[in-house]
């Protein structure tokens, strides 16, 4: 059994949850991983201060796509404020696989885009916190 490409990672990669676009939507953001050209966008619909629906789209490696899929299941129903405060540790724990420094950007791309949509701040993670 490969410790990175676990069954559940490949399962989420091949059949991503909440993949696609959302219409209508309240918030959206889009970003690139400049190292590899991967891109990811997110659409969010709010119900009051909760995330009522969320979909991501784009293309990337198994790690970035599975991370987005897994995170999406946690994020739907979460309070906007809480989601905006999620950090890298939350994402990496949720993934539960060893992520090397070179793949850290892959694992965190969806969180970066999601936070960009919620807060309007596309600069996360700040320099020094991205492990690369």
């Amino acid at each position, binding site marked *: 059994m490969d410790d990175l490409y676990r069954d559940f990672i490949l399962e989420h990669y091949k059949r991503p949850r909440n993949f696609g676009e959302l219409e209508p939507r309240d918030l959206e953001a889009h970003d690139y991983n400049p190292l*590899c050209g991967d891109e990811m966008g997110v659409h969010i619909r709010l119900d009051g201060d909760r995330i009522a629906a969320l979909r991501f789209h784009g293309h990337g490696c*198994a790690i970035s796509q599975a991370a987005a899929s897994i995170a999406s299941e946690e994020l739907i129903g979460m309070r906007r404020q809480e989601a905006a405060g999620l950090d890298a540790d939350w994402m990496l724990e949720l993934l539960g696989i060893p992520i090397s420094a070179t793949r850290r950007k892959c694992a965190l791309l969806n969180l970066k885009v999601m936070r960009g949509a919620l807060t309007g701040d596309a600069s996360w993670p700040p320099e020094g916190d991205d492990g690369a």
Partner: protein
Amino acid sequence: MTAGPSIASARAEAAPAGPGAPLPVPLDIRGDFPILAREIDGRRLVYLDSAATSQKPESVIAAIDDYYRAHNANIHRGVYTLAQEATDLFEGARQRVAAFVGGEPATTIFTRNATEAINLVAYSWGRTHLGPGDAVLITQMEHHSNIVPWQLLCAERGAELRYLEVSDSGQLSLAQLESELARGDVRLVAVAHVSNVLGTINPIAEIVARARAAGAVSLIDGSQAVPQLTVDVSAVGADFYAWTGHKALGPTGIGVLQGRAELLEAMPPFLAGGDMIASVDFQSSTWNELPWKFEAGTSMIAEAVGLGAAVDYLTGLGMERVRAHERALVAETLERLAGLPDLRVLGPADADARGGVVSFVIEGIHPHDIAELLNRQGVSIRAGHHCAMPLMRRLGVPATARASFGPYNVSADVDALADALAGARRTFEL
């Protein structure tokens, strides 16, 4: 290592076989490259990323080591013995590097890399020759180093940047070149000799001749060509030919610009400072002769010595033999990869039309995951856009996986690649 070899003995030492003693084909020179004895997680290192940078033979490493141990001094002005030796080593390397590609020492300028060589032309030639209404013509298969300098130049000078298209089989169209040149505004044509993504060997002598007939200056990016083909810059006839040392078995930090003397003489300097001047007065200066006019500041002396050793080594192998060897590896790779389902090779289907680079995509596995899984088998390949994002867009892929060869690769490396790719497909349950 004891006393350092002179230039002459370093050259003799670098040649693995005497002249006229043909090496067997296929080559197996792995023993000359210390790093290839390394293991990755207990597995033999299979290095398939030579298009990014080549590994270095013992003779190159030894030449750099010997330079610092026995000859180090600043060059060109010192009268003492070490300074004279360092100057002789540096200028001797220039002579051999120039001869290796059919050039002249006076028009062989050492730069930091190919990127700097191209920027030199964009800055010094471009800013004095380009204006509104003029065009620069490049191609969709260029490396960013042969795109971005022209973008900046065109934006600054109000000129237009246009592209020759790449066909589905990864080739340029001479008919489109003709129609672009016929518009009468093209002042410069800049083209890669060999594509770093597709491997395509472009018909540069033809492109250069047609550009010249249309009154345009030509620049060829030879970074991928010099390490694997017999290059004769005088036969190509380009106005500028830029390449880099570290892809050609030499060290990082040294590149080469070969230019036509009349153009170089008329161009203003690029970087200004010491060594590039003839005399300096309080308000103005006069410039040194070629090639030193374009080599401001203390040069990369040890790197030049290392590159000299690298071209000695390649000369010893014989570039015809290097090409034949890598061509055979590519043909074998194309054949092996054709047997893998879901895998698509990009670029020319014919090994004769391409250099030692094979880019591919696998439906269902992202290139980064391919590279990660191959690394677990000790196989080092590159994944990403390969500094050619416009080409990725043209090909309709976000990224590719790329295996590329050096003269030290062997058939067993192709087997390791194919086996590891089959394993990656199994991991992803394809």
